[in-house]
């Protein structure tokens, strides 16, 4: 039961993009089409789940086998340790993407290696996985990853629809519709996420009142 709560909280209550405002750089950069958004979301989810699991496992082993002093000194260097774990998984993702999805890898470009510095991943490793056991950490990573993917897709949905009149390559709005080119250009990303954040704030205050 509690495992499910760990999963669900990432989707709305603690959504990494809309509620915590973490991981903004990839969110804005790759949300110009839904395909890119889902690809980036899947890559981030994989890294999140794996790094959360390994970090929880490492912390469990440290606590079990190290003496009091060893634990203290490990505590001092834990952030670099987490970063190395995350960077290894990002490298795996980078190589797999380049081999099997060359088109996606091309369009995401520099933002695949930049998953390393996505604040969500280090934030969850430090804030959740280092304090909890393995199974909840895995679920937390999965929930956060799905929440991130949903948020990216929501932004990409508006941008792609208004910016080109298409969704995943299919024309949705045809006829006399003139695409708002601004939406697929960088300014569109800032405007859409600003409006989404405002909307979720409004929704939140509305819920609290009723």
């Amino acid at each position, binding site marked *: 039961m509690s495992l499910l709560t760990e999963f669900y909280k990432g989707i709305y209550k603690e959504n990494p993009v809309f509620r915590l*405002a973490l991981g903004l*750089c990839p969110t804005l950069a790759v949300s110009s089409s839904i395909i890119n958004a889902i690809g980036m979301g899947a890559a981030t989810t994989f890294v999140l789940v794996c790094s959360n699991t390994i970090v929880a496992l490492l912390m469990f082993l440290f606590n079990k086998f190290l003496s009091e002093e060893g634990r203290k000194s490990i505590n001092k260097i834990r952030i670099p340790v987490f970063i190395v774990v995350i*960077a290894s998984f990002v490298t795996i993702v980078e190589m797999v993407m380049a081999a099997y999805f060359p088109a996606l890898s091309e369009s995401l470009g520099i933002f695949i290696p930049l998953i*390393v510095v996505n604040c969500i991943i280090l934030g969850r490793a430090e804030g959740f996985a280092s304090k909890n056991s393995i199974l909840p950490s895995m679920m937390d990573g999965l929930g956060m990853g799905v929440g991130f993917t949903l948020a990216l897709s929501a932004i990409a949905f508006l941008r792609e629809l208004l910016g080109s009149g298409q969704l995943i390559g299919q024309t949705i709005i045809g006829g006399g519709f003139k695409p708002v080119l601004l939406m697929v250009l960088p*300014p569109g990303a800032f405007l859409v996420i600003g409006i989404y954040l405002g909307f979720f704030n409004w929704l939140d205050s509305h819920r609290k009142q009723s």
Partner: protein
Amino acid sequence: MEYGIFQLIIMSIFVNNFVLSRFLGLCPYMGVSKQLDSALGMGMAVTFVMTMASMVTWVLYSFFLAPTYQSVFYLLFDTPIDKIPDLTFLRTIVFILVIASLVQFIEMYIQKVSPTLYKALGIYLPLITTNCAILGVTVLNIDMFFKDGLPLDNSFIHTLVQAFASGIGFTIVLILMAGIREKLELANIPKPFRGLPIAFIVAGLMSIAFLGFAGMSVE
């Protein structure tokens, strides 16, 4: 594509501005742009670390990771050219570790040498490790100025120029944003939009203004 130094400077500051068109370094852009002083401090720190990190990663990439005639394995250990290990897949791990330790080292050095500078930059330095602008510029340099692991002509100079100019572009936008946000504090904004949402919308408007520079692109 051959770039001149001047084109590179204009391109990095205005056309491909790090924040407004490449979307790198948004966390400090939103987090530290509430006051003019701290924006200036953060901008200086980022520019400094960007230039240093680009320098170090260029050297590491061309002498250690890439399997070329410059590789240390070829120069020092006489490895035959077809047996030099191709370590370019280690790029992400090596770069992030280099940046993390470089930031730590710079922090210690500044603290020892110049306490005044440390007071100005000190609190921003630890934040910089996880700033995607730094890792972004180093990866971008490799993508732009290397071909199949071999450095292009003048690639070291171009790397330094691009890193420094990108830092300046970041600082300019950060300072502009801080100026606007100081005014926003007093403005009458609908309640749900206060804080982060309106900052994003302002950034969107700034980004539209910066689109005007796209006409200066040389490509």
